[in-house]
């Protein structure tokens, strides 16, 4: 299984902290997002990315590593991984 966690606005919108999805061979962050969106019938992807590119300020962590330092939406996701989704948010 793959655990997808929702933070910030996504959590408020989806009213869910996380969801578990069965893993599939060749999974990537992008594919996991598409499946999560179908499962929850909630808007997930457009809060995070546009045209296959992450929005400025979007943070996606796979096992706590930012995908921008891995392979972005193409980052492989394996069974047992955790994908954390943070739409743009900031503070100080």
């Amino acid at each position: 299984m793959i655990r997808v966690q929702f933070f910030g606005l996504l959590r408020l919108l989806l009213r869910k902290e996380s969801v578990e999805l069965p893993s599939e061979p060749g999974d990537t962050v992008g594919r996991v997002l598409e499946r999560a969106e179908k499962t929850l019938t909630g808007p997930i992807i457009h809060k995070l990315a546009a045209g296959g590119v992450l929005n400025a300020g979007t943070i996606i962590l796979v096992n706590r590593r930012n995908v921008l330092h891995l392979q972005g939406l193409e980052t492989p996701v394996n069974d047992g991984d955790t994908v954390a989704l943070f739409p743009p948010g900031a503070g100080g």
Partner: protein
Amino acid sequence: MKNGWNGKVLRVNLSTRTCAIEDLNMAWAREYLGGRGLGSKYLTEEVAPETDPLSPDNKLILVTGPLTGTYGAANGRYMAVTKSPLTGTIASSNSGGYFPNELKFAGFDLVIIEGKADRPVYLKIHNQRAEVADATHLWGKSTNETEDMILREFHADAKVACIGPAGEKLVRFACIVNDKHRAAGRSGVGAVMGSKYLKAVAVRGTGGVGVADAPAFREAARETFRMLRSHPVTAEGLPALGTAVLMNVINQSGALPTRNFQSGTFEGAEEISGERLAQTYLKRNKGCMGCVIGCGRVTALSDPRWSGNGEGPEYETLWALGAACGIADLAAITKANYLCNEYGMDTITAGSTVACAMELYQQGLVTEAETGIPLTFGSGEALVRMFELIGTGEGFGARLGLGSWGLAESYGVPELSMTVKKLEFPAYDGRGIQGMALEYATSNRGACHVRGYMVSPEILGVPEKLDPQVTEGKAGWTKAFQDFTAVVDSAGICLFTTFAIGAPQVTNLLNTATGLNLSQDQVLAAGERVWNLERVFNLKAGISPSQDTLPPRLLQEPLPDGPMKGEVAKLGAMLPDYYRVRGWDEGGVPTAEKLATLGLV
């Protein structure tokens, strides 16, 4: 005047109880803009660097920027500039709300407060009339009560900045609270006010603020509005969740300092997150005057142990009162936040000082006989109790009131104080964010995040994502962030706008408001000028470059857990590069050429 500035300075001598109106030094205004820059210029001209911060010789300067009070987004900021009693450095502490604009509407750009009254007083400003009034009846009152009483006796529409009991007791991290819930928080500026027996500044202003080119300024302001309303951070994230949205982000990134920096992840982060606050005590968001972002949190606390209402907690507070103390009790944190507002003390230093005391207790250096309650990490009750003691100056509270450096040093273990230049860190562990480590080490007021928020590129990916563990190139980024932030702080606008707007927009706003025709490079050079001015003051005050460092824990003890496990702050790999990009010598002293280029000699 019709160029952002009013052109007027109010000088108040508390020793003689006299108020005088002077012309603003326009040459300085053009070079230092306003706010932090202009205030620092006046301070460095008028206060000797070696001055005892709590003596009558220190001055307190309340200073707006040319954009403060203008039509525009988030243009309502001021700075309290003084020499800090917590750190001995130059201090400038920023706040928003409604008070800063009112000062402009009264016709002043800055108020310089000097000397010391012989009994409690407060300053009343009604447009161009100012008077030092008796405040004996206000002494000892909370910030809330003080404001209410002043509104009743002076003017119902006045705006008030005041100190609470903490400032009166010279708690070294007392803040100045305005409009009840906004604070010039850091560096102990409230203690300077207390040392002068000045309880409050109340102002009523009915004028406006003119700009040089009104149509162009309106267009520049509209562009800013558009950008703020369309950027996901300023249009959605900050209004809905406030700054507290960062709790889970920073925790998952492994850079959430926990239990006095003993680790970088907190198992209770969810319990004290912005998401949790939104599901519990949050009533609505709230903005400073004219702000379209509205990051403020209006909250009501209902818990069997405590109740109340107010504003906050924001991210730094949730961290300092929460993770730093190992506390996952949102009710206790919210209650303790309200206490900070009422007593008038900086939540970051207050929480961090209790965190330090908790480690002293853990090590057996502090005992229950001293504290009256087990000071264990994780105890919300202990936190609330300690804050009551600090605010009233009773018992162990008097020691805590010195800040973590003064506290840890008094037990012979200053290395347990998580500070740079005696100012406590905010909510990001430099071991997990290398540029932030450099920024902390070099900031002119000590370990501060709002002097160059490297978290933005290194963690949040704004304006672009940098790898937080890479050290190469961080010196240049840090300098650029520091200089630009100094401009924003001097202009009178809120730093949070800069998640959406950048130097071109700020330059445009400044030019159309002031009538100056500055290039973007000249604007950034003004920021660099401010930075160097502060640095030179600190050096003369005896704060040597050897203090551009971090506590041994950050330099030597690797993070024990999380994605940044094993990392330390690699300051040595960045500092020489930083001195070089700053145009300073190898020892960290600004060179004569650099100072000449900036017009500082």
